[in-house]
Every structure is written in structure tokens, then in C-alpha cells.
């Protein structure tokens, strides 16, 4: 077996090793271990994507056992894209964190546990993206959840602990529900490998209703962890109470990881129509999320809450792909390419937006949006970052958000389900409303006082770079569409219920 074929395992092992190392390493070294690991991880992720484009998808049998007895990792196009997204945003978050957490401040980052938890979260996110086993998804969900809760509560003040407890509750509820679902599924089919399950479920059989209930529970659990309306109650507090780099990682990556598991289960494993009404329900909730999240974002007065509600809205777009399942392969490739594009571009823009929001908060010494007047003059780079990330939130060209909206709208209209396109258009307008409300404050005068930029310059330019990457991401659409087509997710499109 060539070294390239081992990449999926390496992508899990490398950050795991780094996590252990940062735990042992002293305060002077841990950040460099994390940085080194971030660079290695990014290189591995690029190599994985390159290999997937080169040789197509492949399965990696952990320990050589092979499914159904062992656990398989699946390296396909969508997985490679998500791993790459985790790597790029992860690298940016790591660099940002080295400037954000002062080495000489003993309490600033959970007594140094930030790096350990962060590397651990990276491990589990990679695992979540690469696993091909329905039970292994559960394991990864738990690991992501534990590290994410730890990171969210890192500040240790009352607000952070309250938000963390809420987040923990959502996580536990989701994990238990998922476990129940996967147990039902296993008892009905005696299988846990998603690719095999796809065949088994398509054939149908005596255990069909049990399997359907199991899948419904698994989906419900993932919906809760992805914070789809109405299961979003935990997200705004958890994402806004966390330290800025953590907010960025949670909003940009963690909800995407659980969403990816959902893609695998609903599109890759379950034949369309197997669970009656499931796909349409997900689409409806997605549309509601777009509208509801945007309206909430419009009403927020604290900057991080505002950004977090924008995430609630943006997550909705990702669910428009599900009601289209079962359409022809060309329509599905447009739709799947669209949501992958959205996930990636939103990940880039949202991490940039959270970093900029956190920096604005620190500079102005308040999180009150109405006291950030004149930021366009006094903090032009941060304001520009908010504006450019905003273009992505609105889905205006040339951002990747435009590409995803266009592809999803076209796919919806092609299947005759034009109402999803209307929801997408409305969502763009609402996003413009909430983004420009904030930008108008920043452009208005007279300027509020703000502290000079004390931290390293990368605190300003790094988020701008992320927002710029998102702004031109529509030109990455050909690559994303190509990756979307590699692997079993699209194959499901051809099967009619």
C-alpha cells in the first residue's frame, strides 16, 4: 500500500499526536507544536485532495480488518474538501491564536489547555469527515462535542460556563439520540458500514421500519448538533461567549463537520424517500432557518451574538440540497456542488468575520454594536473585513456564496421546486439588511473612541485574508464541483425512491 493511500489515517493521527504533545510541552513550546502540526495537517489535506482528484475515491481499512468487521475510512471528494477546509481555517485559527493568547498571561487560555483541546478537536473533525462507519460517526461526534464544550467554556467566567453548560446539554442530548438511532439501525440491518447500508436499505426487507426510525433519530441528533432551526438554541451563546479564535473555529468548522456527517447519512446512505418526508422537512427547516436566523441577526445589539445568528441563518442554505435528492445526476451535481461551495466559502468568511468582530470588540472595549461608530475611519482594515465577509453572507458576486446560491437556485428551478430559489433570494436580501445595518454604524460619524492596535499585525490582516479568499471563492467553484462528483454521495442521486 502506497504512502498516499495512508493519508486518511495520517490526517487523524497527526493532530492526535500534536494534542498529546501540547499537553506535555511547556507553555513556551506548546504553541509551536500546534503551529507545526497545523502546517503538516494542511500539507496532508492538500495531498489528500490532490490524490482524490488524481486517482478517485478510496477506502482505508483501519488495522486491515475491513468492513463490516472493522472500521473503514472513506477518502472521497467531499471529504477531501472538508478536510481541506478544516486545515485552511484551522491553520488561520492557530496563527491567530498565537497572537490572541498572550504567553505571559497565566489565565488567558485555560491554563494552556487551549492548544491541547484545539488539536484534539481538529483530530475529531478530520475523523468525522473521513469515517465511513455509522457508529464511528457517534464516536467522533462525542469527541468533537467534548473538546468543543471545553473550548467554549475556556474563559471560565460565569457567562462562559453558563453557555458551556447549555452547549454540553445539547451535545449530550444529541449523542444519546444518535446512539439510540444507530442501535436501532444496527438491530434492523446488522450492519454499520454506510456504503453497505446503502445497498441493504435500498433492497428493503423486514427491518425496514426499524431502520427508518433509527435513521430519523440519527438525523435528529445531527440536526441538533448542526444547530438547524429550531434546534439552534445553544449556538448563539456558545459561539459568542467563547474566546475569539474558538468562536471562529466553532462557527466555521464544527457545525460543518456535523453537517458533513448528515450529508453522508441522508444523501450517501439513505435512499431518497426511505424515511417518509425527511428530506422535505429538512429543506423546510433550512428555509425557516435562513429567514429566522437573519431576522434574529438583524435584532442583535452585541457584535458576537450578531455574527453567531448569521451562522444560524447561513446553515439553512446547506439544507436546501436535501429536498432535491432523487433528481437527475446533473441537477444533483449542481446542488451538491452548491452546498459544498457554501460550506467552504462560509467557513472562510465566517472565521474571518468572527476574528474581525472579536478584534473590534477588544479595540472598542465593548461588544455593543451601537458604540462602534466611525470604525471605518479608525479601524479601516477590520471594517473592510466585515464588509467583505458580508458580501459572502449576502451571496453576492464574486463570492462563493453567490456561486452556491446560483447553483442551488438553478437546481431548484430545474426540479420545478422553484420556492427554494425564492427562499434563497429572500435570505440574501435579509443578509444584506443585517450586514449593512452594522456597516452603516461603522460608516457613521462622529467616531467612538477606540484603543490602539496593540497586538501583532496578523490580528488585522489574517481575517482580511480569509474574507478575501471567500470573496473570490466563486472561481474555486470548478474545483469544488469536481470534488463533489468524486465519491458515493452523487451516486445516490440516480436512484429513485
Amino acid at each position, binding site marked *: 500500500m502506497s504512502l498516499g493511500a495512508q493519508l486518511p489515517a495520517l490526517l487523524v493521527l497527526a493532530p492526535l499526536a500534536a494534542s498529546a504533545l501540547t499537553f506535555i510541552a511547556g507553555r513556551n513550546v506548546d504553541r509551536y507544536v500546534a503551529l507545526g502540526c497545523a502546517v503538516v495537517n494542511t500539507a496532508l489535506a492538500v495531498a489528500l485532495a490532490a490524490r482524490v482528484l488524481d486517482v478517485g475515491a478510496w477506502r482505508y481499512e483501519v488495522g486491515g480488518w475491513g468492513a463490516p468487521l472493522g472500521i473503514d475510512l472513506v477518502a472521497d471528494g467531499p471529504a477531501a474538501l472538508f478536510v481541506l477546509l478544516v486545515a485552511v481555517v484551522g491553520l488561520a485559527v492557530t496563527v491567530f491564536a498565537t497572537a490572541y493568547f498572550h504567553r505571559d498571561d497565566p489565565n488567558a487560555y485555560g491554563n494552556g489547555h487551549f492548544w491541547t483541546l484545539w488539536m484534539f478537536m481538529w483530530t475529531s473533525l478530520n475523523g468525522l469527515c473521513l469515517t465511513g462507519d455509522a457508529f464511528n460517526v457517534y464516536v467522533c461526534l462525542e469527541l468533537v462535542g467534548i473538546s468543543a464544550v471545553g473550548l467554549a467554556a475556556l474563559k471560565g467566567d460565569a457567562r462562559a460556563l453558563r453557555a458551556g453548560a447549555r452547549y454540553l446539554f445539547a451535545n449530550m442530548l444529541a449523542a444519546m439520540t444518535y446512539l439510540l438511532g444507530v442501535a436501532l439501525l444496527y438491530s434492523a440491518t446488522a450492519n454499520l458500514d454506510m456504503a453497505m447500508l446503502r445497498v441493504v436499505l435500498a433492497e428493503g426487507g423486514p427491518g425496514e421500519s426499524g431502520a427508518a426510525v433509527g435513521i430519523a433519530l440519527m438525523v435528529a441528533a445531527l440536526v441538533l448538533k448542526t444547530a438547524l432551526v429550531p434546534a439552534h438554541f445553544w449556538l448563539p451563546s456558545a459561539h459568542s461567549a467563547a474566546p475569539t479564535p474558538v468562536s471562529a473555529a466553532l462557527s466555521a468548522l464544527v457545525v460543518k463537520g456535523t453537517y458533513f456527517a448528515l450529508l453522508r447519512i441522508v444523501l450517501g446512505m439513505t435512499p431518497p424517500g426511505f424515511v417518509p418526508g425527511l428530506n422535505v422537512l429538512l429543506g423546510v427547516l433550512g428555509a425557516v432557518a435562513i429567514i429566522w436566523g437573519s431576522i434574529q441577526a438583524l435584532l442583535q445589539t452585541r457584535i458576537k451574538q450578531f455574527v453567531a445568528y448569521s451562522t444560524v441563518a447561513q446553515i439553512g442554505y446547506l439544507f436546501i440540497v436535501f429536498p432535491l435528492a432523487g433528481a437527475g445526476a446533473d441537477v444533483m*451535481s*449542481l446542488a451538491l*456542488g452548491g452546498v459544498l461551495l457554501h460550506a467552504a466559502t462560509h467557513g472562510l468568511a465566517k472565521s474571518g468575520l468572527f476574528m474581525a468582530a472579536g478584534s473590534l470588540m477588544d479595540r472598542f472595549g465593548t461588544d455593543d454594536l451601537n458604540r462602534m461608530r*466611525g470604525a*471605518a*475611519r479608525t479601524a*479601516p482594515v477590520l471594517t*473592510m473585513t466585515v464588509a467583505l465577509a458580508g*458580501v459572502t453572507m*449576502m451571496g*453576492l*458576486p*464574486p463570492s462563493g456564496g*453567490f*456561486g452556491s*446560491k*446560483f*447553483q442551488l*437556485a*438553478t*437546481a431548484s*428551478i*430545474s426540479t420545478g421546486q*422553484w420556492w427554494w*430559489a*425564492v427562499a434563497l*433570494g*429572500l435570505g*440574501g*436580501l435579509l443578509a*444584506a439588511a443585517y450586514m*449593512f445595518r452594522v456597516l*452603516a454604524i461603522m*460608516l*457613521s*460619524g462622529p467616531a467612538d473612541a477606540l484603543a490602539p492596535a496593540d497586538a501583532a499585525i496578523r490580528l488585522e490582516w489574517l481575517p482580511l485574508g480569509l474574507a478575501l479568499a471567500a470573496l473570490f471563492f*466563486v*472561481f474555486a*467553484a*470548478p474545483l469544488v*464541483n469536481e470534488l463533489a462528483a468524486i465519491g458515493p454521495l452523487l451516486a445516490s442521486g440516480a436512484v429513485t425512491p
Partner: protein
Amino acid sequence: MMIWLPVLLPAIAALSTFLLGERRPRARNTLNLIAAAASVGTVVVLVIRAYGGEVAVGAIPMMSDLDLGVHSDLTGLLFSTVATVLWMITLVYAIGYMEHAADQARFFGFFALCIAAANGVALATDPVSLFVFYEILTLTTYPLVVHSGTPEALAAGRKYLLYALTGGTLLLLGNAWLYALAGPTPFTPGGALAGVETHTTALRAIFFLMAAGFGVKAAIMPLHGWLPGAMVAPAPVSSLLHAVAVVKAGVFGIIRLINELYGPALASSLGVAQVLAAFAAASIIVASVIALRQDDLKKRLAYSTVAQLSYITLGVALCSPLAAAGALAHLAHHAFMKITMFFTAGSLAETLHVKKLSEMGGVARRMPVTMGSFAVAAFALAGIPPLAGFASKWLLGSGSVEAGASWALIVYVAAGALAMGYMVPILLAAMRPGDHGAPEGVESDPRMLWPIVIVAAMSIVLGLTAGLPGSPVHWALTAVAPAFGGVTP
């Protein structure tokens, strides 16, 4: 590569302007002027080649089988030339006008970005590429509208976004529907929808979605509400963007929509062009009547712009070669005439703090050259021969007859009379006695005066040379011919 320069050069100027910040204003101004001159040079070379039949094409892969594409066809180049040439002239004016203003880097940066976007709109090869640049234009204009940061400016900005982004969303839905129906549809003179003409209901709906999207910037009534409010922006913005780049991007979109996406034949057989023509005709009359009653000079000019833009929309919606050529020529002519007037309004406001007709007494004595230039532009706009406005209106009028729509001819003639009606009072107000506390004959800053003189002179030159190759009239006749089966009228 060269085909991208009209977009790239202003974008590079914008980027450098942002990076320079408020440091070294002299370097920033020089850099912007050099970029503008280089853009003009590029466009001129492209025009010469296009006249020789050589169309350059550039494309960047964007989505599955959609590219972001630009090409140097004559129709697009006409708009691009107008935008680029007037950018250079407006830059000189703006450097004088903004000398003591705050946030100049932001101003000049977004100003250049607007021109990059307008050039993209002009040269785009297909409706999706056009949409991309069209929305960038919306976004980059916003910081200029709200430049002063006052509550009034912010309110105008909100209104502008509400109109423009809603229009943009309709345009996006139209584009998505069209793509779902017909796949990629690159602009083709005479129509790009061969093979899907039978889907008449869908095509009608798509047309109205797109026309509404373009209609917002083209200020077709009742979608014009944002324009008078946006006059709160600094004078160079009102001049170049709200008389030329932004509003013309709207009418230009309609020109592409009818002549090169649907094709005049299909647009009129579907009955959609006639509906658009009716809206445009109503806009001409209503906006002209409203202009009669405006005391605020910039508002009066803004309503005049609404009317004049609909001259263009009506011309292209008549689906006749002469009227379409007149529309395209008027796009260029109106730009030079109206920018003269907005420059003048800016000079009056900046130098004399005069913003209303009722305060204008004595300004003709105080600034004879400025007001003389204004008078030339005003008469040109009203269609007095041999000035520029007459040439394009002659084409529009004869096109109306050619299309068998004599009602349109009546509209144009009536609108000409109304234009006299709202322009002449401005001149009379300027000649009333009044005192502005300074020696007579002292004009504004030379950087603001000379651009006015130059653009006013253009109104004369373009009218006198209307028959010669390279003039907007000749250019427009050549450019629209392929859309009507290649017959040069």
C-alpha cells in the same frame, strides 16, 4: 490579457489607493490619474481594433459551464469608453472638489472600483457575467453614497440598497431560471435563445425579472425612488455615477437584454418589449413634469436624469434599428451633457454654497464660464441643433416612425418641450440679480472649472461630428446593426 485591462487598471488603482491610506495624497492622485489615462489608452486601442472587426475575448472559469467573460464588442466599448473617459475628467474635478474633505482614500478607492465594475458591465459576454459586475457596482457605490456619514446620507444609502439589492435578487432569479431553461446564453446580436423560444411563459417571466433588475438602476418609474435621495453624495459621485456609470449600467443591461439576449424580433413577438416601452414612455413624461417643480438643483437634475434614461429604454424597446442606435448614442451624449450640469451644481455648492434655484441669483455674473458651459449642456439636453442631444433624439424620433410607433415620436417631442421647461428656469434663475460677496468673474478652482468646460465643449463637438466615423452616432449605428440582421440603416 489586454481585454481585462479596463477592469483591472481601475481595480489596481483602487487597491493602491486603499493601501496608501490618507498618507501621501499627491502620490494617490497621480496614481489614479495615470491609471485613468492608461485605461483610456487601452479602451482606445480596443475600439480601433473592434472597428477593424477584431473582437478580443477573455474568460475565467467560474461555475460548471459558466465563465466570467469579457469581450470588446462595439456596443460594450461605447459604454466603456464613455465611463473611462469621464472617469479621467471627473478625477481632476474630484481632486479639486475633495481637497479638504475627510476619508479621501476611501472615496477615491471606491470611486475607482465603481469604474472597474462599470467597465465589467459594459464588456461582459453573457448575462451571468454581467450580473456579477452589476452587483459589484451596487456594492461599491454604497460607501460613496453614505460618504459623509450623516444620518441623511445613511438613510439615502439604505434606500439605495433596498432598491438595488431587491433588483439584483430579481436579476439573480431571472438568471438562474434562464440557466435552468437554456444553459449558458452568451450575448449574440439578434438573440441567444434559439431553441427555447417555445417556452413563451417562462421567457416572459424571465424577461420581466431581468428588466426589473436592470430597471432599478435605469430608474424606470416606479423603480426610480432611490435616485433623488442618492444626490446627497458628493458632487463627483452624483456626476459620474448617478449620471453616467451606475444609471447607464441599468439601461445598458436593458440594451443587452433586448438586442443580444432575446433579440428584437423575439422581444417584440413575446409582447414584452411593448410593456417595457409603455413604462419608459410614462417615466419620461412623469419625471419631466416632476422636474419642473424642483427647487433643489441636484434634485431637478436627478429627475431630468430619470426622464433621459427612459429615452434610452424606450428607444431600445421600440425594436427598430434606428431607435436602438439612437438609444445607444443617447447613452453617450446624455453622459456628457448631464455630467456638465452636475459638475456645475457641485461647483455652485462648493464655491458659493448655492444648492437651490431660489438662491441662484447672481451666479451667472459671478461664474460666467461655468454657467455658460451649463447653458450649452442645457440646450443640448433639450435637443437644440446642432448640439449632441439633437443628433441622438433625431435618431430616436425617426426610429419611432420606422417602428410604426408614432406615439413614441409624440412622447419624444413633448419631452423635448418639457426639457426646455425645466432647464430654462435654471438659466433664468442664474441671471437674476444677486450678490455672492466676491468680485464678479471669479470662477471656482481651476481643477473644477476646466473639466466643466471640456465636457460642455464635448456636447458641441459630438453634435457637430455626428456624421463622422467614431462619433457616438456612427458608432451606435454600426454597433446595433448586427442585432437587426446586419443591415446598417
